[in-house]
């Protein structure tokens, strides 16, 4: 090939979101031939810190691993500690956990859909979606007292109960959100701006998804029907029915549609929880010191499988606590989607949407871009803003097939 290769560094300022990580892309003209990543710019040392705090003190800390999916981490942590005691919380608390988890999923997926709108240059969608997201934030505030960090779950159950007033408010909110999400579901498959940036972009084949251990919507957009809620049910997920969503186009478009459909599923799950909420207490009291044991807990966070591991040593502090947030699991698949291979070509202008595609949460795990062209010995750095400008200017190759007709 006569085209020379460049290496393009991206980061540590994120091309798409507001967190730091560093990517190095090796490019041949427009086409990316290799992608590398370096994280750790936001490493907080939470695992080490947790070893010096009691189980109860760790709840607020775990909640701050991630702002957006804080509920997933708290539920995962609290049920992990409950596994150590081998005790289950009251059924009502388990339903409340599913309720708050699904509210969190709606909020997270809508936030992401807005970001996607912004990344592809469709800011009207961004503003529409984020306006609708306010509904869910208000409901979360009514239920928990906080808009984002919910402080809702605790060891042995939940901290708050739901009142009939909030319940009726929530039903109304769900009706509006359902109507709006249905509208987005109709919009995405026909809107030319979204389709041009998403169809056949960032392919991850099912085989690659399995080999690279992709999780969450990323995995389900590659035809695989794996979801912790159905494969390893926790809380009340053994009773609350839902459909595992998967799409078979394996591209960025499929990742959008999986999340839109999951939002609709989550709305139905919230309704089911409200309809079937058992009566009874919301919390059991547990002693401060759990028995010596090991436990593994998994939760389907909005971004995918969240896994925690705990080992107790007979004191009121954990001997070892491990958190594997979904973004770390999706890094290897992400690099794969950003590499041109065989018939799949990936261009520089696809970078922001692909990064947004895994719904990265680097603080749960890190952004600028470095480009390198070794044959010319040339290296340059773009900030995300420069890259985004470039993305919006550049025109994508024509699509194969009649996309708008789908």
């Amino acid at each position, binding site marked *: 090939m006569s085209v020379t290769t460049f290496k393009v560094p991206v980061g540590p300022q994120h091309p798409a979101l507001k967190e730091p990580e560093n990517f190095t892309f090796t490019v041949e003209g427009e086409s990316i031939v290799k992608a590398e990543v370096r994280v750790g710019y936001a490493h907080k040392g939470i695992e*080490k810190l947790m070893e010096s705090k009691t189980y109860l003190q760790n709840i607020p800390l775990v909640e701050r691993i991630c702002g957006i999916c804080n509920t997933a981490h708290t539920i995962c942590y609290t049920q992990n500690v409950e596994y150590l005691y081998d005790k289950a919380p009251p059924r009502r608390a388990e339903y409340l956990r599913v309720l708050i988890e699904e509210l969190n999923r709606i909020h997270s997926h809508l936030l992401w859909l807005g970001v996607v709108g912004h990344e592809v240059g469709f800011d009207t969608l961004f503003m529409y979606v984020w306006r609708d997201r306010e509904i869910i934030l208000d409901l979360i505030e009514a239920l928990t007292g906080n808009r984002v960090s919910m402080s809702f779950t605790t060891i042995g159950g939940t901290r708050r109960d739901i009142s009939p007033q909030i319940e009726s408010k929530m039903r109304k909110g769900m009706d509006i959100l359902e109507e709006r999400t249905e509208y987005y579901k109709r919009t995405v498959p026909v809107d030319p701006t979204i389709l041009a940036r998403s169809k056949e972009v960032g392919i991850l084949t099912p085989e690659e998804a399995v080999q690279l251990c992709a999780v969450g919507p990323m995995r389900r957009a590659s035809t695989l029907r794996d979801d912790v809620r159905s494969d*390893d049910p926790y809380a009340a997920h053994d009773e609350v029915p839902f459909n595992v969503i998967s799409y078979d186009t394996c591209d960025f478009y499929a990742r959008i549609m999986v999340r839109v459909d999951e939002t609709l599923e989550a709305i139905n799950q919230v309704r089911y929880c409200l309809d079937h909420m058992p009566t009874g207490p919301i919390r059991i009291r547990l002693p401060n010191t759990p028995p010596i044991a090991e436990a593994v807990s998994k939760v389907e966070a909005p971004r995918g499988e969240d896994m925690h*591991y705990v080992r107790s040593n007979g004191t009121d502090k954990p001997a070892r606590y491990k958190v*594997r947030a979904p973004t770390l699991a999706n890094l290897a698949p992400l690099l794969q989607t950003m590499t041109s291979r065989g018939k799949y070509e990936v261009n520089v202008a696809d970078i922001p949407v692909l990064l947004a595609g895994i719904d990265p949460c680097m603080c749960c795990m890190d952004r600028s871009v470095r480009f390198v062209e070794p044959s010319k010995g040339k290296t340059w750095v773009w900030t995300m803003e420069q890259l985004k400008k470039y993305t919006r200017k550049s025109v994508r190759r024509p699509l194969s097939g009649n996309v708008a007709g789908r």
Partner: protein
Amino acid sequence: MSSGAEESIASEMKNLLGELLEVKIPRPRRLHIKVKPEDYKRAAKHLVESIGLNHVSTITAADTGKEMDVMTFLFGRGVEVMLKAAVPKTDPKIPTLTDIVPGVMFYEREIHDLFGIVFDGHPNLERFILPEDWPEGEYPLRKEYKVTRLKGPREVD
């Protein structure tokens, strides 16, 4: 998922390796197995390729004093299996799983950074989480590493 999958996986592993160091089923859909470090790779390969637990949730480690436990979490057939092997702290070496499951690449690099465990045969064990100027040979998640320099704000006179 059929109940009893935990037992059948445990007995299959016994058939492969003879006596296991530790087998526990703490709750449904959880299985903890401890093997000798020399059996670790064979056990993981069998779990992934023959039993079909092809999703590796993560690889992590824990400091137990003189030794460090390397723990691999595999999921499939409705069971989350924890495969554990203890390596001595003086020579913490264990074979890599990257040739069986390429997705474990970053997990092994993370553990190499934080615990100093060397994964034999890993294609690229460079710094991943820790900063470039982090001192060589200091592993923050080992028990002997104490966070002292970071405590409290600096005094202002």
